[in-house]
């Protein structure tokens, strides 16, 4: 075997394949990647790094999202992010901020407050430092949200359910069916508004909303009863017979485990119980997990084509984890670069190595399977 044929074989293997059900990435991989980016974002307030993170997430979403209804949520998350920044700035302007500043921008009339409300301020001096601080803070939160939005639009939320333990699956299905309620109601409203037009009534205004409201709720209720009937007729909630001993053990393990978790957490948070806290928490967690596992025996469900963790899935998840790890490490070694000074005001600089690490998050745009082009969606109408 010569080298050239080896390289020729390697090249198609490196190209991302077209996405099908068989090579679909597990929803968990996308969530790990996105949570990695989100962790990284939580470690820094440097606007350049945050912008880079948003860019990375946005690029991957643009390259790998499908045409499915759930994939359209990314824009909504970006809008929520911008809204968060705006709210943070408005609060900072009106309620003041503990950040000391020497660059006053303008002064709002201050509302005089009684003595007991000391430390609270409404209006007053607004400094550049406090605005910059609020902006950095808001940007961090917005980036977190956008990362979650990226996971939401890249991975079908219903498929994440497939990774739930058997005992919890049915609850999960109920939640997902409940979540489809909202889009169905939106569709109902649209349909009834067009019907109003057919009767020659204006489609806007409060009157329209009131008149449409009742039929919409009625329709939603009818549909949920119909879906429940269909789920029941298709075997939702079938249980297997388990020996009473197993059932009792399950209850004891689950309840005991949850109690252990509560007590352990309390111990960890309280000042002097920290010695017992951690082991108690771990034992409680283990017991609860065992309880869930045993409880799964009552469920007869099997899984159809669960997602496989292949090389590509591991690469996607690892790229997210790598970004998070690099940022945590950078935060420990060079905190100043990740948290640019506000007092005194300094221009943020892009730290070279953390920025390079963030770019690792682009890996999914190269290795994840490419969704097929939406040429076959002709029958949408």
């Amino acid at each position, binding site marked *: 075997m010569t080298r050239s044929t080896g390289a020729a074989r390697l090249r198609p293997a490196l190209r991302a394949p077209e996405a099908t059900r068989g090579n679909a990435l597990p929803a968990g991989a996308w969530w790990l990647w996105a949570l990695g980016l989100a962790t990284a974002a939580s470690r820094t307030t440097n606007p350049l790094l945050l912008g880079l993170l948003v860019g990375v997430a946005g690029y991957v979403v643009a390259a790998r999202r499908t045409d499915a209804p759930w994939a359209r949520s990314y824009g909504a998350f970006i809008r929520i992010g911008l809204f968060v920044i705006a709210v943070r700035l408005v609060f900072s302007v009106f309620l003041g901020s503990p950040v000391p500043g020497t660059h006053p921008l303008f002064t709002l009339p201050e509302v005089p407050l009684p003595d007991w409300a000391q430390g609270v301020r409404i209006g007053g001096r607004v400094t550049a430092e406090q605005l910059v601080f609020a902006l950095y803070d808001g940007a961090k939160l917005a980036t977190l949200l956008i990362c979650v939005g990226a996971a939401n639009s890249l991975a079908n939320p219903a498929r994440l359910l497939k990774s739930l333990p058997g005992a919890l699956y049915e609850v999960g299905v109920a939640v997902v069916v409940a979540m489809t309620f909202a889009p169905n109601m939106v569709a109902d409203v649209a349909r009834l508004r067009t019907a109003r037009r057919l*009767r020659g009534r204006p489609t806007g205004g409060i009157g329209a909303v009131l008149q449409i409201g009742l039929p919409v709720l009625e329709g939603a209720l009818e549909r949920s009863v119909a879906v429940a009937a269909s789920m029941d007729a298709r*075997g939702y909630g079938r249980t297997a017979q388990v020996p009473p001993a197993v059932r009792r053990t399950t209850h004891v393990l689950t309840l005991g485990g949850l109690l252990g978790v509560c007590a352990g957490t309390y111990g960890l948070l309280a000042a002097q119980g920290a010695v017992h806290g951690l082991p108690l928490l771990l034992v409680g967690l283990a017991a609860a997990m065992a309880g869930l596992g045993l409880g799964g025996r009552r469920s007869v469900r*099997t899984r159809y084509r669960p997602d496989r963790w292949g090389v590509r899935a591991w690469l996607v998840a690892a790229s997210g984890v790598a970004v998070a790890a690099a940022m945590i490490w950078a935060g420990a070694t060079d905190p100043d670069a990740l948290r640019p000074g506000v007092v005194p005001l300094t221009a943020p600089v892009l730290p070279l190595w953390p920025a390079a690490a963030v770019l690792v998050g682009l890996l999914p745009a190269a290795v994840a399977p490419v969704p097929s082009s939406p040429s076959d969606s002709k029958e949408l109408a």
Partner: protein
Amino acid sequence: MIRFEQVSVRYEGVGRPTLSGIDLTVPEGELVLVVGPSGVGKSTLLGAVSGLVPHFTGGTLTGRVTVGGRDTRTHKPRELADLVGTVGQDPLAHFVTDTVEDELAYGMESLGLAPDVMRRRVEETLDLLGLAELRDRPIATLSGGQRQRVAIGSVLTPHPKVLVLDEPTSALDPAAAEDVLAVLQRLVHDLGTTVLMAEHRLERVVQYADQVLLLPAPGAAPVMGAPADVMALSPVRPPVVALGRLVGWDPLPLSVRDARRRAVDLRERLADVEPPAREAPADAVVAPLPAPAAARPGFLGRLLGRRPAPAPERPPVLDAAVRIEGLGVRHGRVQALRGVTLSVAPGETVALMGRNGAGKSTLLTTLVGMTGPTTGSVLVGGLHPSRTPPRDMVRRVGLVPQEPRDLLYADTVGAECAAADSDAGAPAGSCRALVSELLPGVPDDVHPRDLSEGQRLALALALVLTARPPLLLLDEPTRGLDYAAKARLVGVLRRLAGAGHAIILATHDVELAAELAHRVVILADGEVVADGPTREVVVSSPAFAPQTAKILAPRQWLTVGQVRTALEASAPGGPAA
């Protein structure tokens, strides 16, 4: 396989029992068709088999229903899930997951089948129902026929011994319906599945049935027997049976093939009679209601200095009710209509046909102005629908949507009528007069939800007609109607066409098109592929030809009514038996 022993079902607050004294046995591996007029309890009967009645719907069931030896009183629907597969009337309400492949697997997952078995059955079912292309598609993006096939597929995968289907082909175009029926027949023949199915479109299904269960009237004792015998008694019957009864064939033919063999002498008798041409469109013209005096601007309007707009000049009366030139419509990336040119004269009835998703509904919504044209132009009574305010548009065009319930908001028929009068600016009582004409015997205080499917359609039609629109559009009007309701609708629409209304029907119902339409327009992929007189377009097409035309081809007889008139004319003593 299925046994009903002295079963009665009574719902709370209803005077008489919905079903009473049902005693019957359905043997394994039979395809049993449940027929009867609307409202006799067909759906209740089907629900009793899957256990949804009474476990889910409430009501009281007396007697005993057993399926494969399991009593539905002691077994909840979920415990019958491996035995009975149920598809209700509305496939959308059936889906639990959001992609096709997951939906097919859902039932099997609930039953706990092994992963390799599930995989094999999903692949088989995808092929069986022709869904392989759609396997990764989100269900929300499928067309009606595709959804129906996915719903049937999703109950087939657990290999139930009994399949219960409520109107499986009503929403489908003729070709898709045949696909579904072919699948059902294959299940019955190859796998020995017992199928219990209710369907109004008998012309599609009766030939596949091994037995027919007739519920003649609410509360009446059911009749079960061979299809030909039961059809001889049935108040509902497809054209092929009606023709057989007219001519006196015995046993009655159930399929076009049987009837063609018997029809040699009928074709000879009709050889020298010319099939009547459809009478030309009526010469009358409907004058729309005059526009009401412009409403005085409200307080806010006066505050903002709004003046009532000067009344627009009355556009000149045109020769065509609808004139469409080179119309193209895009929804996002999808080209729903492309280069459609069409005009409809007053008094003319046009049937719009074509497979699911061909663009029929889009064309109708464009005509009422809910969708704007991307290219080309649409003129309805001289106005551009998408640029005319809805209040003026109602007096030009009325659309009865696929789900007539969408048009109804009020909680009594009387309130609905009053609202329609004020919406249209018509004199009080004009809607009520129409309702009494279309829907005799319905008092004012009935809730629209308590009306039957056919009554609701008539009410919606009356509401739309209150404004006397010269153009009337109906989207799939016969879905869920039995033959009696359909015959009433045909009568009403004929009268309206005679009065000068132009009517456009989007329909899959070839028999309706044959009864009513002067012209048939066939759409495919958003383009007009055929446009011509009903006889010419419909007789030459295997999918869109009505049964009478198929039996008497190559002569162009369309309906049983035409044949009856011709026979009566040729033999004055009445039809020879």
